[in-house]
């Protein structure tokens, strides 16, 4: 079709005087996994909030499969195929894990019976099936992160925005989740991923975008980015440089 899945054009998001995202532009092509990195407070989550409709950008436009989606509310974006997770997880605490996922499944499968079957499948895929009937509030933080992924996947999105879903996982668990994301991509889902774990970023992403103080300071293959002196200075630190 030629349209990128996501096209961000000169997006600026200002809070009062603070430009949390400052004139950022980039594309995400179908089937890509794109990493988004940058120091704490660089504006990554804010950018996600803009793309997924939680914030209305101060300036700039956003296109999804070629359609202008700037300023559309999150629930409409979810319907057309943008799924996201939250860095500060937002489970439906009083509902069971299964019910949490069912809420998402209902979007595409409005009948209750279908929804339940589908939700089971999603839980199995994400490895949460044994916790299906536990209340979401009893999950630990990483468990909740996994639930975030499950819910976002249950929407059957074409674009998945993942905000630090690996934070708090130990290396082995990180490996599992990395595999999971690869499988998701193999199902044809495009992924935009925020992560501080460079191992993950290096191994998963086709392309990496780096933000610093709201501005895009670098973009390129993982290797290029990791060698970029600006990125090393702002983000990786000398010790981490490859």
């Amino acid at each position, binding site marked *: 079709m030629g349209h990128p899945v996501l096209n961000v054009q000169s997006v600026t998001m200002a809070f009062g005087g603070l430009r949390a995202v400052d004139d950022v532009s980039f594309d995400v092509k179908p089937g890509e996994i794109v990493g988004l990195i940058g120091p704490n407070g660089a504006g990554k989550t804010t950018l996600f909030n803009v793309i997924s409709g939680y914030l209305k950008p101060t300036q700039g436009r956003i296109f999804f499969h070629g359609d202008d989606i700037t300023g559309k509310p999150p629930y409409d974006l979810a319907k057309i195929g943008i799924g996201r997770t939250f860095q500060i997880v937002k489970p439906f605490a009083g509902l069971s894990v299964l019910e949490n996922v069912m809420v998402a499944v209902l979007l595409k499968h409005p009948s209750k019976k279908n929804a339940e079957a589908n939700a089971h499948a999603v839980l199995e895929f994400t490895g949460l099936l044994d916790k299906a009937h536990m209340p979401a509030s*009893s*999950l630990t933080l990483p468990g909740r992160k996994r639930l975030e992924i499950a819910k976002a996947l249950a929407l059957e999105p074409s674009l998945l925005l993942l905000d630090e879903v690996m934070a708090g996982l130990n290396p082995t668990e990180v490996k599992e989740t990395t595999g999971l994301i690869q499988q998701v991509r193999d199902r044809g889902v495009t992924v935009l991923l925020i992560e501080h774990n460079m191992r993950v970023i290096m191994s998963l992403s086709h392309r990496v975008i780096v933000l610093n103080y709201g501005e895009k300071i670098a973009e390129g293959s993982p290797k290029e980015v990791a060698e970029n002196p600006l990125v090393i200075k702002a983000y990786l630190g000398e010790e981490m440089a490859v």
Partner: protein
Amino acid sequence: MSLLKVEDISVYYGDIRALWGVSFSVEQGNTVALIGANGAGKTTTLKAICGLLPLSDGRIIYKNQNIANMPVHQVVEQGITLIPEGRQIFPKMTVEENLLVGSYLRRAKAKRSKNLARVYELFPRLAERRKQVAETLSGGEQQMLAVGRGLMQDPDLIMLDEPSLGLAPVIVHEVFSVIKELARTGLTVLLVEQNVHQTLKIADYCYVIERGKVVKGGHSKDLEEDSAVREAYLGF
């Protein structure tokens, strides 16, 4: 002699059992790490030590005294400090006020200005931002603030729950060097981390928790070599 000895503690969340008789000990002056899969019970263990969660069973011996089920404000008065998961700073207070709350303890009040100077020396970034409202700090700065606030309590034992969570690599590095620095000044450190590689590098001793039980313990170097540990926690 051990500064802290955790003996066979059990904790329930309502009807769900989270700890099944956890035991380990921390020697004076050591840096001890707890590692384990998510949901293993590390946070629960730290909270139980602090008195944030009630024990259903077991003893916690600190400085030869059983502090099990002591209310939290008394536990910290004994010199135990927890830097909680997720930082938990006071969002509407300034950096300095956050630090001052740290010295609310009777044991720390007298040393308030001395400790404050020490924290600012350790974290010059905080000194720069002493009048800034805490919620506007970046994640890394908030983590420094949380550690600084803990130090203001003038602790003998400092427990850190995933201090590197969600931080940029450059900051993660900084956090670990701070922990090393703390240990060097003679503080006893109990560290919970998922960043197992770096943790094993700075810890003297390490315990592995699985499903609410300590399944292994040993010198960090030995564990790093242990093939089961490597597979389960280091991703090799």
